């Protein structure tokens, strides 16, 4: 019984920390409709700034409190700068581009923190009062955790007062529902948005600095925290503060008890809860359906057959690709093989995201399942390579079909978040199931069959498989199924009304995209000779997203162009110092200046002066 009480209290302390981050995220989303991936980075900055401040102050409680507030204010100021410098310019951009731009900020902040504070973990020297304990139910419970337990409800109460009792709060709530109308009534949204963003950033910073006594400032907390915060916000309902509090309690307690009772599968458990909640309440516990932006119905580009010039260009590239083994050395061939894999990976994401309208933040899951299926076929089953390459798309397609059953019910940001959640589940399973997957060490020695051992032969095989699969996806888009898919994207209701089974069509597209990504993973596994959990990590999903958006999501050639350009750019940047900062800056600039991608920009240039 004592154990239950102490774990419940630990869970409450965890819930408070979760709530601080999630509250900021949900308030920002509610008003600006921006899903701020960089929210975890603000938390991380709060922790670092807090460390810098607190280590310079006297170590008694009053100074500690002052330092905490100062760190939160500093983070709020940084948030305001971020809003004015970047977000303000992309409020009208599609939500995926916003998400991507803020991910660019994540990368930039990581390297900036590395530059300013160095690679080592920074812990706070803890004075006696911070190390104190109180007796609870016969056990010793950390005093600071009791303080944390109080902070969550306190912040919720203060936010509630702000929202219910001030003009700012009324405007904020009104803008959450219909910001255009608020503007038409004479309210300057620029100021409102900046203040809201600063408020959210300040809450993230507060969470960060309050995490110091029990943890440390390090370069990994940004992505750890943002994943947790996404789960809390999505479970609670995006934009709902009470929802965030409820979800934080749920997840906090789940983590506290899970870590003791089921330590191996806590992460899986958390995401499973999220999946279950979303299946029964697609908008979260206390969320409401998002109002469709009025009068802003996006006119999406039509999918037209390629013009002759583009066909000739495509044939020329294909001929060049076929001829590559004649002049390219082994290293170049291995780079080209990776590019082919990247092309199929991007094309498969584009298939569900462009024409399918289902943007995924966890596409690497299917890639990884394909890669691990091939590796396990080779190792555990001692199957020949062709069997492994067959198993890869089948396993990934089956997994995508299974998870897709949950996922295709949602749309927009919720869908993207659920794909992220499933990818994290797959990642956690692979990472923690040492006996089968080798955990962090991966599986080594996944080499191609003897007949394909020559890099030139394997390259041609990759070209046939990846190129062929990408062409097949393209063919599907021009088939009746492709039209039906776009119909369900543009208007699910009207598609249903003319007799299309929207859910089934979306699920088929999702599984097909998953299978194609799985094939890419299988080809990659044999090309590299090994598989690792990083194949499934968020970063890899983002690689595919950047490739698609770089190429242009509304063009058929986009993913091909984007994958080639991104792979080349990535290889060039990776060898330089602070490559994350450069890549992040590149992504941000891409979103700001080329929202239609390379192929989109080229298309516009080509069409200029020609009749539509």
């Amino acid at each position, binding site marked *: 019984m004592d154990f239950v009480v102490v774990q419940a209290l630990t869970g409450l302390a965890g819930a408070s920390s979760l709530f601080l981050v999630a509250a900021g995220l949900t308030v920002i989303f509610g008003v600006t409709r921006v899903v701020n991936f960089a929210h975890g980075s603000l938390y991380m900055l709060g922790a670092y700034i807090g460390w810098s401040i607190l280590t310079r102050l006297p170590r008694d409680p009053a100074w500690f409190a002052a330092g905490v507030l100062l760190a939160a204010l500093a983070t709020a100021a940084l948030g305001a700068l971020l809003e004015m410098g970047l977000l303000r310019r992309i409020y009208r951009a599609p939500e995926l581009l916003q998400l991507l731009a803020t991910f660019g900020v994540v990368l930039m902040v990581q390297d900036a923190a590395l530059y300013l504070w160095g690679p080592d973990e920074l812990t706070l020297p803890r004075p006696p009062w911070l190390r104190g304990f109180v007796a609870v139910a016969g056990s010793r419970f950390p005093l600071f955790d009791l303080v944390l337990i109080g902070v969550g409800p306190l912040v919720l109460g203060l936010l509630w007062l702000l929202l219910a009792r001030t003009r700012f709060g009324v405007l904020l709530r009104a803008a959450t529902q219909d910001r*255009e109308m608020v503007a*038409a*009534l004479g309210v300057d949204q620029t100021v409102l948005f900046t203040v809201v963003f600063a408020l959210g950033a300040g809450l993230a910073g507060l969470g960060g600095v309050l995490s110091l006594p029990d943890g440390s400032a390090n370069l990994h907390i940004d992505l750890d925290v943002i994943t947790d915060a996404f789960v809390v916000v999505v479970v609670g309902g995006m934009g709902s503060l009470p929802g965030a509090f409820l979800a934080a309690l749920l997840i906090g307690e789940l983590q506290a008890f899970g870590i003791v009772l089921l330590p191996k599968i806590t992460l899986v458990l958390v995401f499973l809860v999220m999946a279950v909640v979303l299946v029964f309440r697609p908008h979260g516990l206390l969320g409401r359906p998002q109002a469709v932006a009025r009068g802003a119905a996006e006119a999406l580009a039509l999918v037209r057959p390629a013009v002759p010039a583009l066909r000739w260009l495509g044939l020329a590239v294909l001929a060049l690709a076929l001829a590559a083994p004649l002049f390219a050395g082994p290293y170049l061939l291995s780079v080209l093989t990776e590019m082919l894999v990247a092309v199929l990976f991007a094309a498969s994401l584009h298939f569900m995201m462009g024409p399918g309208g289902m943007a995924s933040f966890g596409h690497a899951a299917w890639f990884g399942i394909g890669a691990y299926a091939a590796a396990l076929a080779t190792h555990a089953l001692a199957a020949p390579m062709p069997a492994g390459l067959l198993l890869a798309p089948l396993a990934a397609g089956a997994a995508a079909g299974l998870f897709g059953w949950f996922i295709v019910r949602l749309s927009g940001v919720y869908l993207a978040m659920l794909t992220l959640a499933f990818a994290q589940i797959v990642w956690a399973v692979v990472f923690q199931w040492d006996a089968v997957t080798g955990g962090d060490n991966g599986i080594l020695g996944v080499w191609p069959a003897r007949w394909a051992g020559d890099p030139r032969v394997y390259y041609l095989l990759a070209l046939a498989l990846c190129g062929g699969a990408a062409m097949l996806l393209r063919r599907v888009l021009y088939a009746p199924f492709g039209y039906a898919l776009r119909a369900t994207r543009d208007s699910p209701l009207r598609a249903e009304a003319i007799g299309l089974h929207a859910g089934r069509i979306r699920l088929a597209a999702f599984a097909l995209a998953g299978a194609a990504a799985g094939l890419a993973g299988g080809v990659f596994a044999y090309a590299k000779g090994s598989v690792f959990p990083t194949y499934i990590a968020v970063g890899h999903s983002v690689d595919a997203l950047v490739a698609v958006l770089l190429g242009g999501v509304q063009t058929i050639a986009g993913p091909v162009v984007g994958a080639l350009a991104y792979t080349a750019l990535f290889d060039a940047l990776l060898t330089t110092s602070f490559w994350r900062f450069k890549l992040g800056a590149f992504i941000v600039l891409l979103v700001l200046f080329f929202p239609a991608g390379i192929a989109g920009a080229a298309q516009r240039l080509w069409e200029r002066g020609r009749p539509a």
Partner: protein
Amino acid sequence: MLAVEELHSFYGRAHILQGVSFAVAPGAVLVLLGRNGAGKSTTMKSLIGLVRPARGRIRLAGADIAGWEPHRIARAGLGYVPEERRIFTELTVLENLEVGRQPARDGRPAWTPEALFALFPNLAELRHRPGGRMSGGEQQMLTIARTLMGNPRLLLLDEPSEGLAPVILEQMAHAILALKAQGVTVLLAEQNLHFAARVADAATVIETGRIVWAGSMAALQADEAARRAHLQV
């Protein structure tokens, strides 16, 4: 008060307003009549800045407000009442009014919730009711009251009669006439000719984005040929 010259607006590639010109005199009620899709709502949205006009001038008390941000236009004295009402459903009646509140202008007393409850007695009983739990007629009154809280020089009313029961419609006509008596200038977009005739001094008829008729309300009442050509369905 308001002078619109050669206004052109687009939705994407569709050319909706193709050179709209008209003027509203201070203290007058001008009705903009036209069939569905003629361009009435687009005219209203172009005036408040929710649709950015491609060309043309909009003069409000001397300043050219074409191309301004909506909040600046509202602060310059245009009050917009949207056709869809767009009540903040999670906010109470008083909170909805608070969102609309702006300082007084031109030395006239500022609208207060109490003054508005006198104008729309139905709302007085509902101060703390969330906007989402009100009838259509009550929401229509609230959306007008909310815009009046900004103390506009000129009120843009987009089809306030749409979907209202006759008894509510009568109250609405009373309210508009009361506003006129207090010196508020009104531009009203309507399809309901009877309702328009109750409140308007002058009429302008719009068809496929162009003004096809202009004159006094009485002249339009007398001109059966014009009504048949431009308004009857």
